[in-house]
């Protein structure tokens, strides 16, 4: 039996990328998981160590600092980016003049790399150079805004910079979703005498559910792998106050010759992603399918 080219050709064309992602994504995930159970130090060493690396990891104060930071950063970053993005999208959706121009302004931060926005915000938030000095020189000598150098508040500066960069992106997705809402429904609601806020609250926002899902998915993975923004903005400091798991993983694996511990932290990051994403994706596929 000979197969038609249009049956086997797509499979043939896709197979190299399939093989490549199997090897370079899933293969390396497996290697990382395996390494996290070994005595690896400077170089991979396949001597079995059981869960020793995980015991070490959970005993490390620095790991918990990173974990708490990513929880604070992730929650606020996703919530604020979504809230601000949705608000801007709704305002832009009011058929205002110059919408295209405004949309571009809000979206442009996304075109920058996190390194650039991190560095810019580092200067803006530095008490001796930026905002604090500016306001003080305007005649408010008691104004202070030193979050960047305050170990208790520094993680929130990362949130500010992250939201500034990503809110526009959330806006673009929400705006696209808003444009997809059937205008017949809205008109029907208006005929029934519903006010604009009610229409948004009861009709439009609930129909945006799939958009909320995609925005959460994209922002959550940006949050969990955040590395460059923190490195550029605070370098993980003051001290280790703004440490995040990605920095922890990098430093222990590559600077401190503790590859096994670094691998264990990477596995924990993966587990977090899975724990958040899988229920979300499951709920989504179930409700839409």
């Amino acid at each position, binding site marked *: 039996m000979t197969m038609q080219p249009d049956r086997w050709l797509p499979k043939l064309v896709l197979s190299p990328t399939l093989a490549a992602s199997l090897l370079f994504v899933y293969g390396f995930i497996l290697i990382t998981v395996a390494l996290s159970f070994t005595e690896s*130090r*400077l*170089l*991979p060493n396949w001597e079995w160590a059981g869960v020793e690396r995980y015991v070490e990891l959970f005993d490390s*104060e*620095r790991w918990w600092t990173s974990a708490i930071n990513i929880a604070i950063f992730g929650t606020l970053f996703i919530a604020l980016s979504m809230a601000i993005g949705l608000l801007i999208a709704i305002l832009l959706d009011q058929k205002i003049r110059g919408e295209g121009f405004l949309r571009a302004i809000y979206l442009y931060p996304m075109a920058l790399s996190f390194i650039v926005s991190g560095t810019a915000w*580092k200067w803006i938030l*530095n*008490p*001796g*150079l930026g905002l604090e000095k500016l306001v003080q020189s305007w005649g408010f000598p008691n104004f202070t805004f*030193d979050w*960047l*150098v305050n*170990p208790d508040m*520094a993680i929130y500066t990362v949130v500010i910079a992250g939201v500034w960069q990503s809110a526009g992106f959330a806006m673009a997705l929400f705006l696209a979703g808003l444009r997809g809402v059937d205008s017949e429904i809205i008109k029907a609601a208006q005929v029934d005498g519903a006010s604009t806020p009610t229409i948004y609250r009861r009709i439009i926002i609930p129909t945006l559910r799939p958009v909320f899902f995609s925005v959460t998915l994209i922002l959550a993975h940006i949050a969990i792998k955040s590395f460059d923004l923190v490195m550029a903005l*605070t*370098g993980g*400091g*003051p*001290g*280790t*106050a703004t440490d995040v798991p990605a920095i922890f993983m990098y*430093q*222990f694996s*590559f*600077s*401190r*010759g*503790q590859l096994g511990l670094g691998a264990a932290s990477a596995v924990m990051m993966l587990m977090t992603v899975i724990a958040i994403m899988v229920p979300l994706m499951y709920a989504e596929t179930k409700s839409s399918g």
Partner: protein
Amino acid sequence: MKLKFVAAAIAASFVAGASYAAEVEVLHWWTSGGEAKSVAELKKMMEAKGHKWKDFAVAGGGGDAAMTALKARVVAGNAPVAAQIKGPSIQEWAQQGVLADISGASDEWDKLLPKVVGDAMKYKGKYVAAPVNVHRVNWLWINQDALNKAGGKAPTNFDEFFALADKFKAAGMTAIAHGGQPWQDATVFESVVLGVGGAKFFNDALVKLDPKAIDSPTMLKSFDTLAKIKTYIDKDAAGRDWNLATAMVMNGKGGMQFMGDWAKGEFTSANKVAGKDYACVPTPGTANAYTFNIDSFAMFKVKDAAVQKGQLDLATAIMSPEFQEVFNLNKGSIPVRSGMSDAKFDACAKKSIVDFNATAKSGGLVPSFAHGMAVPSATQGAIVDVVAKFMNSNMSSKDAVAALVKASRTK
């Protein structure tokens, strides 16, 4: 036609590959200004001996990027001839069984190097690495103008130091210019421990990691001193790069800075002169001690006999007086080889050479903890975390000592 050309190019590259079999590939991360110039000297010397130099420079990350590249190469069984590795990392690599014995080049080295330095270059009694230079870490850099106005006497102990800092503060300056990055915090910390406890205590606590020394009143006092130093640092210091702190001392915004002698490069490139624009003195209480930070090249096992010869020539070239002089003049450090003329070096380097030789005899010569010379990177990292936390929070000295005891057990 075009195809023929490509074929010829491929053939040529094979031929070229074959004839350069004896090339000496060296991994380093000296890519900036004076450092790159220094490496070029080494290349010239190797080429004069008929070897082909292959530069394997990986910039960035203070060597992290280079180390990652090196690991990949070693795991793949394709190590370079030599790589810039220092301190206990040499031992870590040697334990992996990948470093070469370079006894053929190192017969005289025991006589030329202080014992503590020679030992760091050896694994099981055989030299496996060649030292390039010596940086002194326990330097205090002071703005000379400000110092003159405050009486002109550089502080020799912490009482004088804090008295001077008060005068600087009263004059409206940031008394201590500092950059709040973990390695800089650790640099101040080790100088304080050395100044408060002396060389023997430093050795016990930060090199041998003796729990009795770490959990001691002397360590408590070191943290108290560090806490007091903190009060003279401006709050914008968080995340500041070291060279910006040096610039503060230069332009009079800051009074003094704890930093290794690479800070001299900043002064020199701004045309500042030691003794006139700035003063370099040992950090308080450390006149008779010397924390060294030595760059070295570890030699990897290679199979080809011609390359092995090149490796030994490389080791000999690195230790030659000519290279040691020209390299260190460019880099701002001092030669590691003893018995050399110091005629061409500046005042700070001359003092560094005198102190290096004196402390090598007296036992005041200790490896720098903050710069990866004293303990394995994992332990160092854990201790630096504690110090950075202490510098950036309200942690008490007592809690810091307890955290230090725990961190020092990191393996």
